[in-house]
């Protein structure tokens, strides 16, 4: 079996081929965060609406490889409806998992667990984290504006 099968799991391919919550909005109530990866050309925008400490909606768009694009779709699917503190925990947990650092296996990352294989491909870690980092920045921005 080719190593790469650990990377291209069915769930990932499904989100890649059929992205959920894709397409941006002009609605000013969304936080918008954009990250480019100068080293490989990936370019992702994440938009988030937060109300009453709850993630009401997440939108995404951009260009990149399957790992990058699918992870934005997975992120959106996972986060919508989550309490913001929980969303932050999930995000940090996901980032730790990808970067091969200790993480809490009991926190339910749902489809995002499929990206566990990425840590074997250091050159692709950025692909799998770019959308999540944009989302992390969103939470930071929200927190700072609510201190």
């Amino acid at each position: 079996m080719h190593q790469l099968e650990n990377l291209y799991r069915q769930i990932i391919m499904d989100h890649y081929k059929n992205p959920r919550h894709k397409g941006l909005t002009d609605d000013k109530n969304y936080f918008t965060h954009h990250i480019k990866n100068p080293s490989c050309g990936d370019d992702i925008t994440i938009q988030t609406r937060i109300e009453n400490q709850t993630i009401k909606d997440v939108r995404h768009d951009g260009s990149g490889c399957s790992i990058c694009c699918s992870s934005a779709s997975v992120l959106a699917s996972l986060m919508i409806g989550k309490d913001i503190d929980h969303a932050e925990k999930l995000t940090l947990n996901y980032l730790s998992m990808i970067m091969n650092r200790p993480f809490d296996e009991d926190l339910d990352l749902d489809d995002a667990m499929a990206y566990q294989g990425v840590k074997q491909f250091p050159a692709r870690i950025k692909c799998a984290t770019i959308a999540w980092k944009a989302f992390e920045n969103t939470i930071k921005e929200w927190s700072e504006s609510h201190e």
Partner: protein
Amino acid sequence: MDAHKLKLDFPILQNQPLIYLDTAASSLTPQCVIDTMNEYYTEYPVNVHRGVYQISYKATEKYTQARQTIADFINATFEETVFTRGASSALNLIATSYGLSHVQKDDEIIVSELEHHSHILPWQQVAKKTGAKLIYVPLNKEGRITVENFKRVLTDRTKVVALTYISNVMGYETPLQEIIPLAHQKGAIVSVDAAQAAPHKTIDVKKLNCDFLAFSGHKMFGPTGIGVLYGKQKLLDSIEPIEYGGDMNDNVELFDAVWKDTPYKFETGTPPIAEAIGLAEAVRYLQKLKPEAILAHEQKLKELAVKALLKLDGVTVYNPTSETGIINFNLDDVHPHDAVSFFDEDHIAMRAGHHCAQLIIKWLKVPATLRASFYAYNTEEDVKTFTDAVKKARDFFTSVGF
């Protein structure tokens, strides 16, 4: 040329399994070049010029000889050979120094969509700043610059022709030998980006009769951190430096200063000493192998590979007729960044992206491509490993649902 024996000269090919197909980005470094730089750092690691003590004298001699070696390599003179940080820096020097002072509103600058960003953006800036027009040679349907199409855009207003010698994406050679005299007839000067030519061709600037030419060390067995600008003596004499400071002047007064002659007036500060000496060794290595022999070898490998790829379904090759060792292709419906991880698993190093040449990628109407480039140290076994991997990758990505 025995590529198998050649591999022994490259420590990285001894240290790990590696099918290196990314020479168009950077070539690997042979031991002799590493040794030559180590010699500098261990035996005379000091500054050049003005040092009258022996090791500084030695450094100055070696550095001076390095320039002569590189000048001889392209049939230029010592004075016509300027060291820069790299090809990009050299190409910018031409545009900033010559371009901004010689190009005027409504003048025309001929470029092409085959240019590397480092040859297009400097002239795009000159056009913006001076009001000159950037004129693109229409590419033929293969994506080539042809003499016919060049003639269609050459006018009495053409002041500068800035073209690549060999495209880093398509591997095509521009017919400069015919284009340059046509440009000169109109009084235009010709700037040649030879970053992809110097590693594979004997460049003779006198025969080519180009006005400026640039290339980089790291693509031709040399170190990072160095490139070369060639300019005709009378042009270099007539243009101004763009960086000022130590070592490029004769007399400095409170409110005025006088520059040295070329090449020194373009080289302020401590030069890339180890790098220049290393590049000279790379040139000797290249000359020993003979650029023509390298080109013939890589062409042969490329043709073998293209033949195999053309037999595969779901693989598109964009430049099957290229005359150098570059293959530009895609697995249909697979993003090149996904594809390249597959090859990496098989220790095949290839590039995915726009290769700093977005215009030709846009011209091809794709988001990005894969590029495999062959060089002196690649073998027929490498080709087989590569083409087998393309087939396996094609099957793999299809199987997982791409």
